[in-house]
């Protein structure tokens, strides 16, 4: 028998903890049963398998040693199965796959992290990595747009990130009685973030409509299109570049993405049903 390949055959991980984040979203914390996968770079993804049901691509929302955290919204058969798992059950994980976020090499660059809805999850490892090396960067702003205050992920993170020297702003589409914060779309928060457009880099994740609007607004404010990175979502069955499902024109997103620069993505995202 050939040696098991973690890119083709899932590696067993045990659910160590499950934390409900919103009514339909939960964090699953996974520990390897025996062998662990190689480390994931922020923005790379795993294929996570629910026994007998199937696997789906999931970005990591945290990685601590061999411990992986995924944020899962129950929207399809596999994600519903994973979302409903309790501590002690076993899942399969393949990876790491794809190209993740690429923080700027130039010291002192201002960073803008813009998240919409569940898009905050794949950005969490990036924010953590950046704040762990805080002196290397200029101003760091994390701008978060969400549907309702109840849909806001990682409220504890927000406090931690502020304490670690990031400006964190949150706006919601639909406030509730208790909400005293901003109401509006996430692009409005750009006015709040301080950054030097010629010396800034941006990282976007959320619905494509939100990322398109944000990227255009950033370009209008002077950011170069190749300094704006976004994480794209398409169907994926293999993660290894063989199944063909994740094509976006010239890109195989499991191989050439999921993180793509706006300069590459813009002409592709403008073609409907590409």
């Amino acid at each position, binding site marked *: *028998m050939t040696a098991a390949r973690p890119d083709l*055959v*899932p590696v067993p991980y045990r659910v160590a903890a499950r934390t409900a984040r919103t009514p339909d979203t939960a964090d699953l914390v996974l520990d390897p049963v025996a062998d662990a996968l190689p480390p994931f770079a922020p923005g790379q993804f795993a294929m996570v398998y629910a*026994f*007998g049901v199937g696997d789906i691509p999931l970005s990591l929302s945290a990685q601590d040693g061999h411990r992986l955290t995924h944020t899962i919204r129950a929207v399809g058969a596999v994600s519903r199965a994973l979302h409903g798992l309790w501590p002690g059950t*076993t899942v399969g994980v393949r990876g790491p796959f794809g190209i993740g976020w690429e923080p700027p090499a130039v010291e002192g660059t201002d960073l803008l992290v813009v998240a919409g809805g569940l898009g905050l999850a794949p950005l969490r490892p990036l924010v953590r990595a950046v704040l762990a090396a805080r002196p290397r960067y200029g101003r760091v702003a994390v701008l978060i747009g969400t549907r309702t205050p109840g849909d806001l992920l990682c409220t504890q993170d927000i406090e931690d990130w502020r304490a670690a020297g990031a400006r964190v702003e949150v706006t919601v589409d639909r406030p509730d009685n208790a909400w005293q914060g901003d109401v509006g779309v996430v692009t409005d928060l750009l006015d709040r973030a301080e950054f030097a457009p010629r010396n800034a880099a941006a990282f976007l994740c959320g619905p494509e409509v939100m990322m398109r609007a944000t990227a255009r607004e950033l370009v209008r404010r002077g950011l170069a299109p190749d300094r704006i990175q976004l994480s794209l979502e398409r169907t994926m069955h293999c993660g290894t570049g*063989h*199944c063909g499902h994740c*094509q976006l024109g010239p890109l195989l997103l499991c191989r050439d993405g999921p993180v793509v620069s706006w300069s590459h993505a813009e002409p592709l995202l403008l073609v409907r*049903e590409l």
Partner: protein
Amino acid sequence: MTGEAPTAVIGTEGMAELIRVLAARGRTVIGPTVRDGAIVLDELTDGDELPYGRGVELEAGHYRVRPRADGAAFAHSAGPQSWKTYLHPQRERQWNADRGSDGAWVVTEDDTPPPSYAFLGVRPCDLRAIAVQDRVLAGGPHSDNRYRARRERTFLVAVECTEPGATCFCTSMGAGPAVDGGYDLALTEVVDGGGHRFWARAGSDEGASVLAELPHLPADASLATVAHEKVSAAADRMGRTMPEVDLQALMRETLHADRWNDVAARCLTCGNCTMACPTCFCTSAEDVTDLTGDHAERWRRWESCFDLEFSHLPGGPVRASGRSRYRQWATHKLGTWYDQFDSSGCVGCGRCIVWCPVGIDLTEEAHALNAERAAGGPPGEGAA
């Protein structure tokens, strides 16, 4: 292979012996044979199973086997299947998972020993198609090791093309009708006053040793020249052409063309073209469990980009319209394949034209897109 490539002349008895020699070496010999009114690929045990005296009549949406007076075995062009049926099978189990009483489970990779094939009668277009799939499935950062294992064990007997079909355009795609390496043995069939002969060349050490085992006809210096001439003449008799432009750029620049609406009005989105295409590689993962629920399997099966589910996201399909699905197939095949895998995805075999139930012709669509681009593109779209 070291030194000069050995060549020889063999006859039909040598062809029959070739099948026996390959089988004796433990190989499953696959080649063309007549069945159900078509020249199909199947396991061969004897030379008389080859389609001697059979040709094909091809047109868009049309395929008929026709008798040939010359008795040639390889005077037919692409049939309904291609070699991917064997190298990249329609359905394949990738692994099993078994759950114990404690809820933990173990995975075992499927370790069925890969078959050892000999492909007899690989046309140059299909030889190119195998090379294209090699790059897709075994040439990237992740290699499909089951494909690779089958591929590495396969012995390839190429047969050059002297009788192109009405739907062939390998010359436009630079894939034929002559072979250009990548084989263990190459043959060119010549039927003339000198008899029914094959000019054979070895392309590998194993090819040379197989060739040495075959009964040879007397060496005939003129046969190589005759074979070359027949293959060169075939290049000028292609039934179809592609526009002589950069097809990658043509596809990139016509994403909004009106022609996609025209072809979408005819296309049934049945996916036949993707099944018949020798390079289409897309698959879907399929997960099954047994009745106890404690044994699970991961299968991979061919999938078509014409399937609505192919581009499914939680909200629905990305390519909801037939127009976008045909466009995806054609632009991938002729254009974005270069971006992804550094070559065209089309080898000019014409299968997609023949096996389209409504006779959509990829070359005609490419010419129409080229004409529309030359005429300045569609009004309204993009320009507004």
